[in-house]
C-alpha cells in the first residue's frame, strides 16, 4: 500500500532546480509552518515552564525546563480511569461507526436503489445536528431510561455523532474504486461478498484510516455530553481532566498545558500512523499498481 503515491516522486525530480520561484515557495512554506506551529509550541513550552514564567510581560523563550507540571497533571486521582474511559469510548465509537458505515456507504456508492437519494440527504442533514443544544434532550432521555453515568450510552452517542461523516467520506472512497475491479473479480468467480472482501476492502484501507481520524478527533474532544450525562467521576473522560486545573484557587496553567499536550498526543500518534497511508488514499493511482 505504500507505493500508492506513485506520481509524486516524478513530479519532484522535474522541479529540483533552484529558482526564484522555488525559493519563494520554500520561504512561504516555512512562514506558514511557523504560524501554524506557534500556538502548539507555546502550549508545549508553557507546559515545561515553572508557574511564574508562564505569563509574563515579556515572554520567556529560554528557561530551565521542568517536568513538575506533568507530574501534577498525571498525578490526579483517577487519571488512569479517565484514560481508560476515553480510549474505550473513542475507539469503540469509531470502530462501530466504521463497521456500520462501511455497509451503508457500500450500498450508497455502489447500488442504485429506491430511496438512495433520500438517504443521502438524511446523512447530509444529520451532519448538521446541533449536538451541543441537544444535550438537554439527550440528558432527559438518558435520565428517564436510567442511562446516566454509563460508558456504553456515551459510546453509542459518540458513535452516532461520527456516523454521518463516516458514511459520507467512506462513500467517496468506495466510489473512487473502479467498478471494473469488482466486476473483474466477479467474473473470475468470486461472489459479490468475496469481491468486496478481496478486492475493494484492501483498497479501502487508506480510506478507512483517514476517515477514522476524523471520528477519533471528534469523539476524543467531546465535552458537552460527558459533562452533562456522566457526573460520576468514575465514568468521566480525559476532557474533564483537561479543565480541572483551572480552579477557584487560581489557574494552574502549567498543568493545564501539560495535560493538553498529553491529550493531543494520541491524536498525533494516530494521525502520523495513519497519515502515510491516508494521504493519497483517494488516489486513482492505486489501481495502476
Amino acid at each position, binding site marked *: 500500500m505504500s507505493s500508492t503515491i506513485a506520481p509524486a516522486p516524478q513530479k519532484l525530480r522535474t522541479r529540483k532546480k533552484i529558482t526564484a520561484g522555488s525559493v519563494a515557495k520554500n520561504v512561504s512554506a516555512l512562514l506558514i509552518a511557523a504560524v501554524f506551529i506557534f500556538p502548539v509550541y507555546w502550549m508545549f513550552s508553557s507546559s515545561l515552564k515553572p*508557574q511564574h514564567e508562564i505569563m509574563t510581560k515579556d515572554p520567556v523563550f529560554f528557561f530551565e525546563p521542568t517536568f513538575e507540571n506533568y507530574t501534577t497533571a498525571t498525578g490526579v486521582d483517577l487519571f488512569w480511569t479517565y484514560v481508560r474511559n476515553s480510549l474505550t469510548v473513542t475507539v469503540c465509537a469509531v470502530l462501530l461507526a466504521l463497521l456500520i458505515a462501511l455497509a451503508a456507504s457500500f450500498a450508497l456508492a455502489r447500488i442504485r436503489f429506491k430511496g438512495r437519494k433520500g438517504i443521502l440527504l438524511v446523512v447530509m442533514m444529520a451532519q448538521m445536528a446541533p449536538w451541543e443544544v441537544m444535550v438537554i434532550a439527550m440528558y432527559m432521555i438518558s435520565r428517564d431510561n436510567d442511562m446516566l453515568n454509563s460508558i456504553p450510552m456515551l459510546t453509542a452517542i459518540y458513535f452516532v455523532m461520527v456516523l454521518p461523516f463516516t458514511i459520507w467520506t467512506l462513500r467517496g472512497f468506495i466510489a473512487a474504486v473502479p467498478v471494473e475491479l469488482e466486476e473483474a473479480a466477479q467474473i473470475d468467480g468470486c461472489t459479490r461478498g468475496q469481491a468486496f472482501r478481496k478486492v475493494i476492502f484492501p483498497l479501502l484501507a487508506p480510506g478507512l484510516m483517514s476517515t477514522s481520524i476524523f471520528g477519533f478527533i471528534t469523539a476524543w474532544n467531546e465535552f458537552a455530553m460527558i459533562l452533562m450525562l456522566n457526573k460520576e467521576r468514575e465514568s468521566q473522560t480525559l476532557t474533564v481532566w483537561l*479543565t480541572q486545573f483551572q*480552579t*477557584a484557587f487560581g489557574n494552574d496553567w502549567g498543568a493545564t498545558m501539560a495535560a493538553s499536550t498529553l491529550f493531543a498526543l494520541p491524536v498525533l500518534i494516530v494521525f502520523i500512523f495513519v497519515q502515510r497511508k491516508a494521504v493519497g488514499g483517494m488516489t486513482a493511482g492505486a489501481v495502476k499498481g
Partner: protein
Amino acid sequence: MKRKLIAAIGVAGMMVSIAACGTDNGGDKGDAGKKSEGGNKTLTVWVMDGSAPDAWMEGVNKEFEAKHPGVKVKVEKQVWNGIQEKVTTALSEDTPPDVLELGNTQTAGYAVTGGLADLTGDKDKLGYADWNKGMVASSELDGKLYSAPWYAANRVVIYDKAAFKKAGVTPPKTRTEWIDGLKKLKASDPKSQAIYLPGQSWYVLAGFIWDEGSDLAVKDGDKWKGNLSSPEAVNAMNFYKELASYSTAPKDKDEATPQQSTDIVPKGGVSSWIGLGWEAGGAIDAIKKAGKTADFGYFPIPGKTADKPGSVFFGGSNLAISERSQNKDLAKEWLALAAGKDQMTKYAQATEGGLLPNSDAAQFKPAAGSFAEAMAASSVSGKITPVTPGWANVETAPNPIKDYMTKVLKGEDAKAAAEAADKVINERINQQ
C-alpha cells in the same frame, strides 16, 4: 459567581477526594431517625473544592459513621466551574446527592424550584438559634428554611508592607485617608500600581453601594428592580472609578481573569489589592515558588467614616438536602452534626479563622496581623446580595453589572449606562 470565595487553607493538598472509610464498629446503635438495619447505606455529600479541610471532614464522617453503623459517607468534591448546571440536573435525578453545598447567593434560586428539602421543621435539631443572623438570611425564603448556613468570608485590602513603608503610608481608616495614601504610593513609585483593581470587581462595587445606604436591587411592590441608576449607586460607582484610576488593571476583566492572586501580584509592581483569604494564601505561595518572600499586611476596606469599616460582600456557602434524597433523615443527622456548634468550632480552628463559621460562638480568635483578623474586623459590615430566587439569574454571564462597570470606566456616562444595566437586571431578577 461565587467561585472565588473559598478557603484560605489546605490549598495544596486539595486534590484527594476523601472517601472516608473506616467504619468504627463502635457498637452503639444510633438513636437516629431511620436506622439502617443491616443494610449498607451510603450518604453522598457534595462539597466544593476547598470548602472543607480534609482532616475536618474526615473527623465529621468518623463521628457520624460511628453513630450510624452500616452507613458510609461518600464525599465528592465539586469545582465551581459549571456547578449550577450540575446541581440543577442532579436535583432532577432520582438519586441525587443527599447533602450538597450551595453558594449563598444561589440558594434561594434552588429553594424556589422545589429541589431542596424543607428544613423548617428541623430548626431545633439543626441548632437554628445559634446561627449568625446575617448568614441565615440566605438560607430562608418566604419564612421557610432550606439550608443550614455553613461558612462565610469577605474581602479585605491586602498590601505590600515594604511599599507602604517606603511611601510613608499607614493603613487608612476612612476613604479620604485611603485615597491620600494611594496618591503618596503613586508618587513614591510611579511604576507600581498603588492598587490593583480590575474594572469588573463587582462585589467591591456592591460594598460601596451598601456604604451609601442603598442596594443593588430593591423590591418595588412584589417585583424587584435594578437600582444601579439610583443617585447613591452612581456615587458609589464614581468612587470606584476614582480608586481604579490608581490602577492599570484591565477595565474589562474581573479579578479572576487573569487571576490576580497567582498571575498578577506575584510578578511585583502591585502595592495593594482587594482579595479573599485564599487569594492572599495563593499569592504568598506563588511568590515563594518564584524564590521570594511575601510581606503582606491586611486592613478592612475603609468606610466613609472611621467608626465603621466599609461594607463588604459576605460570600459563603450553605448546606442543603435534596428533596429527592433517598436518605433524608440520615442527611439531616449529618447536617446537624456538621453544622453544629462542636464541629463548627473545630472547623474554625482548622481554617485558622480564614472562614467565619455559622455561629459567633464557634468563632476562632485570629492571630494579630493576620488576614483573618482584618476579615473579622470588617465582617461587622458584611452584607449579602438581594435574597430572591431571581438574583442567581443576574449573576450569570454576561453579568450586566460587570458590563456596566466597564462602560463607566471607559468614560461613558454613569447614569445612562446604569439605566441600561437596570433594564437587564429587571428582566432577569423577576424570572425564576
